């Protein structure tokens, strides 16, 4: 009996070691990237030999990198706005629907997530060039919205599902128009969901790489594409710095999303 218990404890320890290793493999490389951003030398070194913010200064002095930062923020803002509009209206429109109609539309929204990014990128590149739209901000916003919309839709859908819609009816019974009732009764209650959905869409666009690689041009290049271009040549400390900024944005999303909606919802809704 004690022998059985011993193997059970050994197994449980083995399980813990395996999980800790997996967690380390998942997270430590990213932490190492951050650490290399704070080193003074002109090569990417770990562990850092001399702590310095030198490369953050170099980033601020580089016009190419600043341009790509501005491009990324612009595209992410546009994507967030467009996919919020599309995702929220779709979640409202499908509220109360079931069956084929619903799964058809949800399937349509999800399909772009399942088609390989390179294929969508290639398709949109050939399609947009027929209209002279290749390398434009609009092309990037539209492409990113294809991937951000299913996420805003799914977050808003589960947000609306938690709202007590009788309150909305009650407001209308009291004489408010449908829109006023929505603005004054529903919106304040679902504000957290709205913020999380908009943030998720923003981050998805900020971090998206494959479609941006094909669809951006020298003037519209986003940060991940710029980082890729310089990575293909050599390991550049500036890439560590922008990686740190991108990781900080993700951390902000996770902290804010966790505080507003709970980490569990952030993990399962998206």
């Amino acid at each position, binding site marked *: 009996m004690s022998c059985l218990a011993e193997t059970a404890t050994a197994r449980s320890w083995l399980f813990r070691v395996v999980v800790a290793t997996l967690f380390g493999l998942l997270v430590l490389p990213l932490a190492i990237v951050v650490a290399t951003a704070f080193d003074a030398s002109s090569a990417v070194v770990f562990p850092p030999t001399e702590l310095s913010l030198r490369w953050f200064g170099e980033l601020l002095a580089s016009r190419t990198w600043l341009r790509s930062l501005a491009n990324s923020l612009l595209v992410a803002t546009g994507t967030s706005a467009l996919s919020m509009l599309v995702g929220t209206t*779709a979640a409202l429109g499908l509220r109360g629907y079931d069956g084929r109609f619903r799964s058809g539309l949800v399937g349509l929204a999800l399909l772009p997530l399942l088609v390989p990014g390179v294929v969508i990128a290639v398709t949109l590149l050939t399609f947009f060039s027929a209209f002279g739209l290749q390398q434009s901000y609009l092309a990037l916003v539209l492409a990113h919205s294809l991937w951000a919309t299913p996420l805003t839709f799914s977050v808003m859908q589960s947000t609306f599902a938690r709202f007590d819609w009788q309150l909305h009816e009650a407001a209308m019974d009291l004489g408010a128009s449908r829109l006023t009732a929505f603005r004054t009764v529903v919106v304040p209650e679902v504000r957290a969901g709205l913020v999380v959905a908009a943030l998720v869409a923003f981050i998805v666009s*900020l971090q998206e790489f494959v479609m941006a690689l094909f669809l951006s041009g020298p003037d519209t290049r986003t940060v991940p594409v710029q980082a890729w271009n310089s990575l293909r040549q050599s390991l550049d400390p500036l890439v560590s710095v922008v990686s740190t900024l991108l990781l900080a944005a993700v951390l902000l999303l996770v902290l804010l999303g966790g505080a507003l909606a709970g*980490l569990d919802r952030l993990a399962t809704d998206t």
Partner: protein
Amino acid sequence: MSLSDSRPARSLTALPARWRTAALLMPLVVLDGLVFLVPMGYLFRLSFTERTSGGAFVEGSWSLAGYEYVAETPLVHEIFAFTVGYAVLVTALAVGVAVVYAYAIWRATGWPRTFLLAGAVCSLFTTIVVKLFAVVLVFSPRGVLNDFLTGAGLLAEPLFVVDNLAGAVLAQLYIVVPYAILAVYAVLSTLDDRLVEAARDLGADGIDVFREVVLPHARPGVAVAAIVSFTWSIGAYPAPLLVGSGSEQTTAILVSQLLLAEFDWPAAAALAVVTVGVVLVTLLAGLWGLDDGGELLG
């Protein structure tokens, strides 16, 4: 009040509701229609145009030349076979890791649970480029891990896990594993603790519980994890390009070469259509295999 009296009144209130629904769904239909379905149709049409050395494709022509190229070029077969094998390998590893990790999140409480979950979510949202940079930095022959292992005397020679198949698989795992973890976890989080307790009370040990209760419950999540890992790896592009050697060529890399370097749009389009076909077949087979496939879309 007879039935005939109430009918016009009902259809009057029903009509605006229907229009309202249509108006609310319009943005989604327009976006996915104009930016996804129509371009996909355009790609499909392109794949049936004639190939030419003078430009990208012959406008208005009909031809099967693109598909003939895909069907008859040995190099394309080789690359296609490699890509499928690569995707299967990545999928198997990703699902294995995801089940263990998601089970660990589900079992953990308090801070360990928060950290495990946050780690997966952070990795999920981090751009592919940063993850690939991290992989190169940590796993290359003169990288952090090899320096540590050889420095500590654990290894005499550095491990070569970059610029080869192992590197391409490892890098692709960093891209798909977070999605796989959360797909399994989303389903696992609906598992009732009492079911596990009941199994324990009936004398099951940890492994029995995992095999008899947890795994069957997680099945739909495992299926989604497998589908996502496979469809994303069949289209793998940046990971094999940056962390693989030249011989880890995938169909996605070939498609982009045909399109951008060789300017052979019919061949590129035909290969892309075939790739999408493989993805759709996998997807349908996966949905069909699950009895409650409809729920995946809900």
